[in-house]
């Protein structure tokens, strides 16, 4: 072989390459290993996150309830007939206490009684009231009812399956014994937690539910969708089909891209200063929340709608224009229907983003403690993520469970929306 270089023969070159091979392959393996480790870390994070949430939250879907023989004694209730007014004043708490005392007749001292009464949720009287209201005949009669247990009881009962001792917290030995008795006699059972889905927020974990937050999220998203989709699509049409290439258009473009990356909390400040302070719109209302989220999701929708419009081949436009259609007709009759699936996909993804958003809504007062279920877009309301934030802050152990359960509900909505977006894209995707 001839010399390739003046002082290095091909043989020498081969040798030198051989010398380095082992270390180079080692480096290659390390690099590859790092790659695998990174991907594995990401996947692990997903798994840990989901198992953590699910293991914490699945308990919230059941709720301990205590079976009691309740007598709707007119004397205890302090009423003689059943009507709106008497129901309001009736002493249902007394009825429940009576029933509890009957079940555990040995209890005498005052402190013991207080312990005993705290077995049942403070919301239980409302259950009885509703029963009596729907069936006035019950007055003076005795009935077996399942009443929601207090959250401390619930937490204790649920923790019993983890360890023999269970998590006591504020539960005294005496109370634990009663609970054990009730469990053994089948008078305390874990039943499906309907309260969680049918009630609004409450200070008492066993009475707290996500219905108000869900409806708040619904109204907020409704406002967001109604505003952001048409505006976003219109903006995309203008930018993609009409806008001349000039400084003004560039400015709009730069603006949209920048807005997409502005921290969400800044939108909250905008909402507070402009919508609430300047326009004096009601605080805590889904209307304002929707407006803020509209501004936030607009960039996403505009960007995806533009991509959808871009994907429609120019030949379609040329065909329509060639037949004498005006530009507007071409767009609205031909281009827009073809681009619609892409736009809808973008809208769903934007809505999913909006559904998970919390920070800006804190600014406009959707963080208030609201028990009532909202009925419109101007009622004070909270949304699911904010409800999660509020509950996460509560010290009671039972709220941890409910927070995780609310997260599970939120995540399932998000997963459903994203899956819908993916399916929609797949199903309606056109190949030109």
């Amino acid at each position, binding site marked *: 072989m001839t010399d390739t270089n003046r002082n290095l023969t091909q043989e020498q070159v081969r040798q030198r390459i051989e010398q380095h091979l082992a270390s180079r392959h080692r480096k290659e393996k390390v690099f590859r290993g790092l790659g695998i480790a990174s991907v594995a870390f990401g996947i692990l994070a997903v798994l840990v996150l989901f198992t953590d949430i699910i293991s914490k939250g699945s308990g919230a879907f059941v709720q301990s309830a205590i079976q009691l023989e309740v007598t709707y004694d007119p004397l205890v209730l302090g009423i003689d007939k059943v009507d709106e007014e008497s129901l309001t004043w009736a002493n249902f708490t007394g009825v429940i206490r009576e029933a509890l005392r009957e079940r555990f007749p040995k209890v005498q001292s005052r402190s013991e009684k207080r312990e005993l009464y705290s077995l049942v949720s403070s919301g239980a009287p409302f259950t009885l009231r509703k029963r009596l209201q729907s069936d006035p005949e019950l007055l003076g009669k005795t009935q077996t009812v399942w009443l929601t247990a207090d959250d401390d009881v619930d937490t204790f009962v649920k923790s019993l399956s983890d360890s023999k001792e269970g998590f006591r917290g504020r539960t005294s030995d005496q109370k634990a014994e009663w609970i054990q008795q009730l469990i053994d006699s089948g008078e305390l059972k874990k039943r499906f937690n309907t309260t969680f889905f049918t009630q609004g927020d409450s200070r008492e974990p066993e009475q707290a539910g996500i219905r108000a937050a869900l409806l708040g999220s619904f109204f907020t998203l409704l406002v967001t969708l109604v505003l952001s989709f048409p505006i976003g699509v219109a903006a995309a049409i203008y930018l993609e089909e*009409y806008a001349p290439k000039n400084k003004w258009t560039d400015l709009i473009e730069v603006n949209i891209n920048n807005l997409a990356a502005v*921290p969400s909390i800044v939108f909250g400040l905008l909402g507070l200063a402009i919508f609430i302070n300047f326009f004096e719109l009601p605080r805590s209302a889904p209307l304002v929340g929707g407006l803020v989220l509209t501004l936030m999701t607009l960039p996403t929708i505009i960007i995806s709608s533009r991509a959808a419009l871009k994907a429609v081949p120019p030949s379609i436009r040329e065909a329509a224009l060639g037949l004498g259609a005006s530009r507007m007709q071409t767009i609205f009759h031909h281009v827009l229907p073809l681009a619609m699936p892409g736009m809808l996909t973008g809208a769903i993804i934007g809505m999913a983003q909006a559904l998970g958003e919390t920070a800006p809504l804190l600014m406009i007062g959707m963080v208030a403690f609201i028990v009532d279920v909202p009925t419109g877009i101007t009622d004070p309301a909270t949304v699911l993520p904010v409800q999660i934030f509020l509950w996460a802050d509560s010290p009671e152990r039972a709220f941890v469970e409910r927070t995780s359960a609310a997260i599970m509900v939120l995540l399932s909505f998000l997963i459903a929306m994203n899956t819908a977006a993916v399916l929609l894209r797949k199903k309606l995707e056109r190949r030109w």
Partner: protein
Amino acid sequence: MQTSTLFALLLLLILVAYGAGISRALTVAHKRGGLRKLAALPGYYGSYTALWCGLPALLLLGTWLIFDDAIIRALVMDRIADKPDTIAGQNLLYAQIQNLASGRLIGDAAPQLQEAALQLNRLRTGSRNLQAALSLILAVGLGAFALLRFSPELRAREKVEQVLRWVLLTCACAAIFTTVGILLSVLFESLRFFQTVSLTEFLFGLHWSPQMALRADQVGSSGAFGAVPLITGTLMVSVIAMFVAVPVGLMSAIYLAEYASKRVRALAKPVLEILAGVPTVVYGFFAALTVAPFVRDLAASLGLQASSESALAAGLVMGVMIIPFVSSLSDDVINAVPQSLRDGALGLGSTRSETVRKVVIPAALPGIVGGVLLAVSRAIGETMIVVMAAGLTANLTANPLESVTTVTVQIVTLLVGDQEFDSPKTLAAFALGLMLFISTLMLNFVALHVVKKYREQYD
């Protein structure tokens, strides 16, 4: 008349105008012998009339609704002789008057206030009646005008399309309005803030304690508003997040783009993207209840003292949140590097990792840097994770195991709950917001510019 009834009435009028336009066009066309004699389809004449009828009236109504409260307030307050000097005092007074006017406040108030309340009610009724009358007259009048102007030669389609085009343009400008809105809202309140606290104190002060602003022995009488501890806290959390997100995000993007088989890619990518779809409040919950105790216990087992709201826990979780962001941006730029460069390097006998490290990454570097800048701006602006998992008290420290607070946390704590719009405490939140907006805007601007330039290079 109620505003909602007015709206309904206007909508009805618009529909009527639409129908009238169409029927008018049809009758004329019929007389002249066919639709071809018209310059546009009847539907366009309908839309044309409807636009004339509805658009000006709705615009008037909108403007009216925006400004009537402010004008009424000015009129009412003008009549009151001895007004308080402060804005807060005036607000309070006006709220009193409003309550009086709506009958919510029962009891005896100063006669001056009662009179003002009566005037307020008068003005309100008057305004509402005037607004209804004006917009209805406008709608009917202009609708009729459009019908009268009708002629078969009228190019209704072009006119309608012109209006539509303006509507489209307005929508496209929504982004600009938003930016301007953000700027105005944070700028004005910030300026008011800087009237009480000097800019230098805000930017270079080492002490932040707005909550105790009312205590007399505090620095000044208005609390301490030195933002340095917030800035360092924000930076610390962001840097920790970047230490997690950039290597993991970049390496997983590289692995998935350069090494993984199609099947692994098809499986791993969506899983990683799940991380991007999880709401930040969920990460916050996870950070506060799972990661923070874990970090604390781990530190304790190593003989270290860690706060239960450590910067490390918040930063780690934020890093996890940003992984998919970094990896999808890196994936884009790595895929934009032409295959021919890889072939060139492989053809010379590079190993895959050499190709990646010495050719692909250097070629993709501008794009990756842009992506990382965007990620940094995300970390700085992230709110929920730090609100839930980082501390509330400003702490000037370099120890990631201690608790720190961030700009966003302070904005939230200052603004959640009742606000007085002229206490420096509330206004400080807007000053922080301005700072946040400007810094992220600059980061985004640079990042987007870099990425764009990079894309052009390989297009």
